């Protein structure tokens, strides 16, 4: 078996594993030894003051307190973000190293006179892992070069954040790179262990991100297969935020704490992190700082983390609901990541699941961790699951993507979101939309692409709040065709979770494709509402058309007559409308009506299709004859007529 690496590329720590056999997964040993929290490769890179790289991993992490501006860490929180987005999220203030705005609003990390992209820092970490894995003295079981790897990615990361991580891996020397969602990797490892059908909710709280994923394992013949059903979470919520919350709590409580320099701040935060880890087992911990000793109890820790614990609610509720299941369908809860060692974190998860009606057995499993420990190692199971996927032992049959994609359409009623790919879909997935542009003399048309995702902090089942992020405005140079410009936008999210947008001028071979790395804005945009209700996308309409075509031989005279009546009603509705596209649509519809009035039943299906196409035209925002709800009602009427 050709050995491949599974890598858990973490915000604070990374680890790697290799499946040497189906049942045997071996962790990769680092030349600098294991870090205190159980992972082998701290995600830290140390530089000299001139910007040259000094060390990666444990040594770099140890040097943080001495030279905080020369140690770059936590870069996973920055990768794939625009500078403005990082600024808005407060990420640029989190670290002691310098972060600058680069060309095209990208992020650059400045050390001395050198500037690094976040991706190049990840490259250094991945290169270190690869070199150590290939080092026979350190890892004698492998004895091979590793050209292929599967890297775990936060499930809740948007497609645009994945591409720079893949680039970093290729730059580090991996010829083939796959990805797996972090909670899914953990669940695969656990699924192999339990070896039976189950629905597993994985709560993966790392240093920088929270992912909640629902995964189902089902029997298929002699095999068990698994698939993601839904994922939710926070792109920026994890152990680092907990450290900050505890630090602020202590500063507010102990006025004697004075953090005058970057070095003071780094040292104190390091003490906070250590005490947080100690409180996983002890009832109280002591922090040593500037010759003084501060005590922190478990109750105080819970108080300090109160606001963060409340933020677990949205992702847990959303993941179960969007998976299409009830909490009572969950068979197991798998806890992953360092912060799940903290008892109050586990209790907060338990509380939410109990509120939702999770079964007693599931809650008891969480309680049992206190005595029996975790069913799988929460620090290693992600890289082990990635290794199992890399070796082809087990692969998720479906992977979900939390955000949806669409475009912004302007009308006299404001700016609206028109969906193309629905949120919480499985990928690969594609969606298309055809758009008319009213100025026939325009040489360029532009579209504003937007990602839509539910806001986990404002979760409400009855009225979810969505965030719309601007991915950029993309243009296509068009040629005059003597008619209004009609442009097709095709969006595709590939198996690698990479997003591609292709604009094509219809009736020509003129097109342009934008891929994920270009789609790098993350500005939140303000929109009035969705331009469409769900389930009225182009594909639904196409499916209805297919149905009319298929059933043409089953049409009755009554159905034909009712269709004609509906067509005439619509023609009456637009009789005073002078819009060129409407006039063209009217001609087509009138021809279809004539066909049926000649008592030709085979023309009835064509008429139903013409009505459907005409309705679609009437609801276009630039035409605006009918609103989405009216369109939906007309479509229902049409469906009833043809019953």
């Amino acid at each position, binding site marked *: 078996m050709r050995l491949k690496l599974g890598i858990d590329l973490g915000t604070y720590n990374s680890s790697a594993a290799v499946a040497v056999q189906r049942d045997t997964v071996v962790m990769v040993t680092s030349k600098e030894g294991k870090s205190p929290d159980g992972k082998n490769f701290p995600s830290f890179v140390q530089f000299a003051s001139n910007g040259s790289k000094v060390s990666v991993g444990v040594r770099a992490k140890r040097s943080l307190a001495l030279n905080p501006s020369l140690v770059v860490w936590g870069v996973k929180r920055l990768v794939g973000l625009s500078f403005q987005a990082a600024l808005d999220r407060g990420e640029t203030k989190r670290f002691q190293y310098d972060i600058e705005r680069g060309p095209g609003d990208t992020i650059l990390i400045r050390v001395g006179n050198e500037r690094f992209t976040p991706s190049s820092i990840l490259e250094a970490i991945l290169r270190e892992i690869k070199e150590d894995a290939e080092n026979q003295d350190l890892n004698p079981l492998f004895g091979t070069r590793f050209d292929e790897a599967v890297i775990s990615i936060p499930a809740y990361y948007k497609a645009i954040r994945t591409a720079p991580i893949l680039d970093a891996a290729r730059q580090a020397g991996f010829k083939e790179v796959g990805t797996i969602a972090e909670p899914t990797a953990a669940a695969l490892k656990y699924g192999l262990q339990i070896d039976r059908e189950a*629905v597993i909710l994985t709560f993966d709280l790392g240093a920088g991100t929270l992912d909640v994923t629902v995964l189902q394992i089902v029997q*298929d013949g002699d095999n068990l*297969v698994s*698939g993601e059903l839904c994922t939710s979470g926070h792109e920026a919520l994890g152990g680092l935020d907990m450290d900050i919350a505890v630090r602020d709590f202590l500063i507010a409580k102990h006025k004697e704490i004075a953090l005058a320099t970057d070095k003071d701040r780094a040292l104190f935060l390091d003490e906070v992190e250590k005490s947080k880890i100690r409180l996983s087992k002890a009832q109280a911990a002591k922090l040593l700082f500037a010759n003084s000793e501060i005590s922190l109890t478990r109750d105080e820790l819970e108080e300090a983390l109160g606001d963060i614990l409340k933020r677990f609610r949205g992702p847990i509720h959303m993941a179960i609901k969007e998976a299409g299941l009830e909490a009572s369908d969950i068979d197991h809860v798998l806890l992953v990541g360092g912060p799940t060692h903290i008892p109050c974190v586990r209790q907060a998860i338990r509380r939410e699941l109990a509120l939702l009606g999770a079964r007693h057995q599931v809650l008891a499993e969480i309680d049992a961790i206190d005595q029996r420990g975790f069913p799988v190692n929460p620090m290693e199971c992600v890289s082990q699951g990635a290794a199992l996927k890399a070796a082809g032992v087990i692969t998720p049959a479906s992977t979900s993507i939390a955000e949806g994609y669409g475009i912004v359409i302007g009308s006299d009623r404001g700016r609206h979101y028109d969906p193309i790919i629905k949120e919480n879909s499985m990928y690969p997935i594609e969606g298309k939309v055809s758009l008319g542009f009213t100025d026939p003399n325009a040489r360029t048309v532009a579209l504003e692409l937007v990602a839509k995702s539910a806001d986990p902090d404002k979760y409400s089942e009855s009225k979810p709040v969505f965030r719309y992020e601007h991915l950029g405005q993309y243009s296509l140079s068009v040629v005059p065709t003597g008619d209004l410009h009609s442009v097709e936008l095709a969006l595709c999210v590939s198996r690698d979770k990479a997003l591609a947008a292709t604009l094509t001028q219809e009736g020509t071979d003129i097109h342009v494709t934008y891929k994920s790395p270009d789609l790098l804005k993350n500005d939140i945009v303000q929109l009035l509402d969705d331009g469409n209700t*769900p*389930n009225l996308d182009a594909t639904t309409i196409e499916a209805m058309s297919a149905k009319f075509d*298929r059933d043409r031989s089953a049409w009755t005279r009554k159905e034909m007559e009712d269709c004609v009546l509906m067509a005439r009603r619509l023609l009456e509705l637009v009789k005073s409308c002078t819009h060129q596209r409407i006039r063209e649509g009217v001609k087509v519809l009138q021809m279809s009506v004539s066909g049926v009035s000649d008592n030709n039943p085979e023309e009835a299906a064509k008429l139903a299709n013409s009505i459907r196409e005409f309705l679609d035209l009437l609801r276009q925002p630039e035409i605006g004859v009918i609103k989405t709800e009216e369109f939906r009602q007309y479509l229902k009427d049409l*469906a009833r007529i043809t019953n």
Partner: protein
Amino acid sequence: MSDDNRDAADELIIKMVEAERYEEALGLDHSASRRETTAAFIRLSARHSGQDRVLIALNKARNAMLSETGEDKELRLSVFKSPG
């Protein structure tokens, strides 16, 4: 399964989904529970893991079935007519 049979099975799923005959595409009856629906979706996704067109169709069926209301489902099933 031969390649020809596999292609035919792929096309059948795609056509069923296009016709909004989601239950038939997933091999379920109309009273299938949500858990049975998601299980069937995963099983078929695993069997057709190499075929993007089938995966896209299965995804569409799953999305539609899990998001539709009882009324939507009734409407969908009432619109459908037997071929021929």
